[in-house]
């Protein structure tokens, strides 16, 4: 899978290429808006990693131009600007995600994959934490590569948690995901499903933990 990195700092560009290569991505590096604009018209990339402060202008201009031409390429913006207005402006200009420097390579790759995994995008469908794996295509969970049978509700909860790995899923999100916007939800229904899922996972030897953040939501993480 080929990615385009637009970054004018040579050292950073080189290191990014190395890191992304290690994660299995081929990378092209360009250092100016003009080059990037030309290349993007003719070449297909899975995603664009865009630095904002470039020698020939603001990366947001390229981004707006892309969106204006209805180019749906996932764009991850890298920037040294972390101010309130900068972030709002970046997302309004059509960025899919926004990473403020300095960032962890791991986080960059995780965010990139989150983008690539979105419907219509290219990445494979398997999500993994420790020995627990979830295939989003056939909605199959497996522990130590052994397929597991879970109820539909438990599967739905697990899928949502796995997709939001490393982040908290609010109780409201879980409710919406399982019941949609209609339907009466018993006040403790979600807790019951999470409780059952937690029990199933631990009984079957998954080395993961489903944390309850009281008043906020749930988070799945590797067991310590």
């Amino acid at each position, binding site marked *: 899978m080929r990615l385009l990195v637009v970054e004018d700092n040579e050292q950073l560009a080189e290191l990014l290429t190395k890191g992304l290569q290690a994660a299995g991505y081929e990378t092209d590096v360009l250092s100016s808006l003009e080059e990037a604009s030309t290349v993007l018209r003719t070449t297909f990339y899975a995603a664009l990693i865009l630095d904002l402060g470039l020698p020939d202008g603001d990366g947001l201009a390229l981004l707006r131009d892309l969106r204006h031409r209805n180019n749906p390429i996932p764009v991850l913006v890298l920037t040294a600007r972390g101010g309130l207005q900068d972030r709002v402006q970046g997302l309004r200009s059509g960025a899919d995600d926004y990473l403020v420097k300095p960032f962890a390579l791991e986080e960059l790759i995780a965010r990139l994959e989150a983008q690539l995994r979105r419907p219509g995008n290219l990445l494979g469908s398997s999500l993994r934490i420790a020995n627990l794996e979830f295939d989003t295509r056939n909605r199959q969970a497996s522990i130590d590569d052994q397929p597991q049978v879970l109820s539909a509700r438990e599967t739905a909860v697990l899928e949502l948690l796995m997709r939001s790995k490393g982040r908290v899923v609010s109780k409201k999100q879980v409710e919406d995901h399982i019941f949609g916007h209609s339907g009466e939800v018993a006040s403790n229904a979600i807790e019951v499903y999470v409780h059952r899922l937690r029990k199933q996972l631990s009984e079957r030897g998954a080395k993961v933990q489903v944390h309850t953040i009281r*008043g906020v939501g749930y988070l799945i993480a590797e067991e310590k």
Partner: protein
Amino acid sequence: MIRFKSIISRIVILHVVAVVITSIFMSLALSWLLNYATNNIHDKAMQQQAVSVGEHLSAKADGSLELNLPQDLLGLYSQAYGRYSYAVIDNRGGVLFSSLKDQAALFPADTVSSDVEFLQQRRGDATVSGASIRKTVGGKTVWIQAGEDLANRDVLIDDIVADFYRNVGWITLPILLVLLIADIAIFRRALRPLRQASEIASEIGPTRTDLRLPTEEIPREVRPLVSAVNQALDRLEEGFRIQRDFTADAAHELRTPLSILRTRLDLLADEQISRALRQDVEGMAHIISQLLDIAELDAFVVDPAEKADLRSVAAEVAEFVAPLALAQGKDIALLGAIKPVWVKGNPEMLSRAIRNLAENAINHTAPGTTVEFVVEDDGTVCVLDHGPGIAEDERNLIFQRFWRRDRRKPGSTGLGLSIVQRIAELHSATITLENRRPSGARFALKFMPFRT
């Protein structure tokens, strides 16, 4: 010399002095003028009477003079009326004619003086005042005297003079007082733009450097001062801006090299060294983003119409910090309000304040304990931890920039709580700090409720 604190009091005092002096002087001047005018009229009338008596003086064939006064004049000079009198004197001082009973002259005979003379003479109880004129009739020079007994003087004129103070003089005082009040009002009006300017000036500070004093309505005499103050403010603002921009630029410029360092570490083969170094980089990155937050806050102005749902902001922060807390074996809980709690303020700034309180609490709470967020319906958000609490003598220190209890402890910049305080200030929010039993701290931020 008395020192006056205000222009108004100076004007009032000086004006009162001026009013007193003027009213005394004006009364004296007016009464003198009135007296002068009455005397003048009296003298003129007496001269006129002497002339008219003289017109009826004629020479007989034998050279002697005779006086034939008509009936109305005889009545005027009659003894019964007694008010006016006349006498005609020849050049040797002999009395030729007189209306007086004793045929005497009105005034001592003066045969040297000029054409007209005004004289006054006491006669018994009365004072006679009048005029003496020279006239030549039939080759003889005579002096005709006409006089008025002052005791019988015209009542009307006397009344005017006598009642002057009572009827007219007092008017000067109220007129001058009205003038004084008008002057004070005019001055207060003239000074009003200055008072408005000083109200604006009182709001100028390091966080509000964009304000300038209005010059349009300022009196021309004071305008140079106001303009000079405005120019001084321009220079100060520029200084502040340069300093602020420098902080922001410096922090900003550090980010790219730090990214390079961070990425290099991520690619390092030795996982153990890489992890330790990564923590250092993260610490530096944290300082940088907090410095940028502070630089941004120094220039930030809260839109008074902006509102935020404190509950959802607190929930977002709890979601954001939960993975951090869990990674350290600590827990997060959000309690309190279930419905939205609307407060005045910028949601992102509120979020930063709560996040800094939360990070502080997570750093200090004991492993295995829970950091609790409590949102109350009155617009308060509390963050409670199970740490050591805040010692009495550290209560004020903790909000100072770069202050840390333990400088060796990693992960703390000493900037977090100063950011919280700054955001609270910007939103007119209050921070309260309590220690909990048996241990722990409770930070409460109370924002202004937003009412539609």
